[in-house]
């Protein structure tokens, strides 16, 4: 059985190379990388800094007065604790939180990203206020980022989701429909292979293509992560690869021709990509997105890559991905047994 699966997977990979599908999977990470390199070089237009302050905080003399006086440059938000302020920042409601520190007599500036345009504007603006009141103490003694990543890293989960869905809903349905349209699958079924072997080979193809694309994206962007995080990430990448490869094969079985597979693939691709990728920016979307299988992949991957999450934190999401994959595999097998639209 293993031999047949390996043989069919090799055949599928060779087909992906011959019909240029492999190039699509290789070039997309490259385009993503180049685009993000350009995006990162652009400036950001900060009109007014949204700064969080802690109520009853022991700030350096003159700091509070200066910030409150500079109304045009700062919009001040008050919090009862550092945790509340950090949560406000994590939800991307503000640009930074100033927390008083007893040790240095100055303030700790908490920001989303240390090396960002917003952080630079906050530091420069506060330094300007400090110069104006001629205070020589350290108003900002330390800067702590909540996420030590640039825009490339923030966007990484979205690109990974996009690649997984691209292979699942665009590449695989087309390849399955091509094999049906050209009667290649019927030809293979004239050999002693099992239907399940053909299905497993196709799932292996999808997972390998996803792994190649993800690996290339990581190599180009040179991200580092903890070994535990890497393992969790790999587990979800494999689970997502299995789920969406199986789903894509099922979509391919619903079509008679490659043209219809491409159309149906896009109809599945966009509703899976957009709500999940945009859920962070909209409350309405974040309530709808969990109903979609892609969010069960996106949410854990995002947490693992950006917030140090682990596979143990997302057992239900893992089960959901495996469950959807198994259901789609069964339906494909059932349609294959019935020679559906072949």
């Amino acid at each position, binding site marked *: 059985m293993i031999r*047949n699966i390996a*043989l069919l997977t090799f*055949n599928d990979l*060779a*087909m992906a190379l*011959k*019909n240029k599908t492999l190039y699509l999977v290789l070039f997309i990470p490259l385009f993503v990388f180049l685009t993000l390199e350009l995006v990162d070089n652009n400036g950001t237009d900060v009109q007014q800094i949204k700064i969080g302050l802690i109520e009853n905080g022991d700030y350096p003399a003159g700091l509070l007065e200066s910030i409150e006086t500079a109304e045009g440059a700062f919009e001040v938000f008050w919090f009862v604790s550092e945790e509340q302020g950090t949560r406000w920042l994590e939800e991307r409601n503000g640009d930074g939180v100033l927390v008083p520190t007893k040790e240095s007599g100055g303030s700790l500036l908490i920001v989303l990203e240390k090396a960002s345009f917003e952080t630079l504007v906050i530091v420069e603006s506060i330094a300007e206020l400090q110069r104006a009141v001629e205070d020589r103490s350290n108003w900002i003694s330390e800067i702590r980022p909540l996420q030590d990543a640039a825009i490339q890293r923030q966007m990484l989960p979205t690109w990974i989701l996009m690649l997984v869905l691209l292979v699942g809903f665009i590449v695989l349905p087309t390849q399955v429909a091509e094999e049906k349209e*050209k*009667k*290649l699958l*019927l*030809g*293979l*079924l*004239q*050999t*002693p*292979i*099992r239907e399940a072997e053909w299905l497993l080979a196709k799932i292996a193809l999808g997972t390998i293509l996803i792994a190649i694309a993800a690996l290339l994206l990581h190599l180009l962007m040179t991200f580092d992560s903890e070994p535990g995080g890497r393992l969790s990430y790999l587990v979800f990448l494999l689970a997502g690869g299995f789920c969406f490869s199986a789903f894509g094969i099922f979509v391919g079985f619903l079509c008679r021709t490659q043209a219809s597979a491409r159309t149906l693939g896009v109809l599945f691709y966009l509703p899976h990509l957009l709500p999940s990728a945009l859920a962070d920016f909209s409350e309405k979307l974040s309530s709808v997105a969990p109903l979609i299988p892609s969010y069960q992949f996106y949410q854990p991957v995002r947490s693992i890559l950006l917030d140090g999450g682990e596979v143990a934190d997302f057992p239900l999401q893992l089960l959901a991905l495996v469950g959807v994959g198994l259901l789609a595999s069964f339906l494909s097998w059932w349609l294959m*047994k*019935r*020679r559906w639209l*072949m």
Partner: protein
Amino acid sequence: MQLEVHDLSKIYKGNRGLLATGFTIQQGELIALVGHNGAGKSTLLKILGGWLIPDSGEVRVDGIDLKNRRALVRKIGFVPETPNLFDLFSVEYNLILFARLFKIPVARIEATLTEFNLIPFRRSKVQVLSKGLKQRVSIGRSLLADPPLMLFDEPTSGLDFDMTKEIYLLLERLHASGKTILFTSHRPEEIKALATRIMVLHQGSLVFDGSPAEYFESHIHQNLYS
């Protein structure tokens, strides 16, 4: 080898297809399946070749049921009208892939390439070959597992005179080697020259089953080609 077909049917929309058909084929017969377009010839062959699932009925080859596909593929070789080859790959690759899936020694591929005069084209991509050459590869591939029963769906359709003659000789050679052959055809001269038995399908029903002599004298032949 014995093929038994009982009450086999496959109905498409508009009551077309194959209606409760039954017959038996013995070892060494060379049978022509004749009928108008839409009479059910290809449907019958596709069911026997495992391409279609019948609505009802029973098919057995040497006692093996049609549902046992993995065992039956070693008993039946099916050559479709349009060769279904991996056309982005070479002739040799197409044969190697199927030989490996059948677990047949690679030496058999050399024999097939030689037998079907495909040695000069072994490294050629299938997509650049003529239809006749593709048909040769397709037949060679279906014979890799040496099945006792061969099904040909309009084997000479779209072929020129020389290639058609070559296919006739091939069918005769396979028949002489003891294989049982069932082929569909629209060409009376083809049927006359090759067949040892003729079956006629009309609107999904088997309306004639007999020798070529009986067939050409019958009103069925007159009606079919008048």
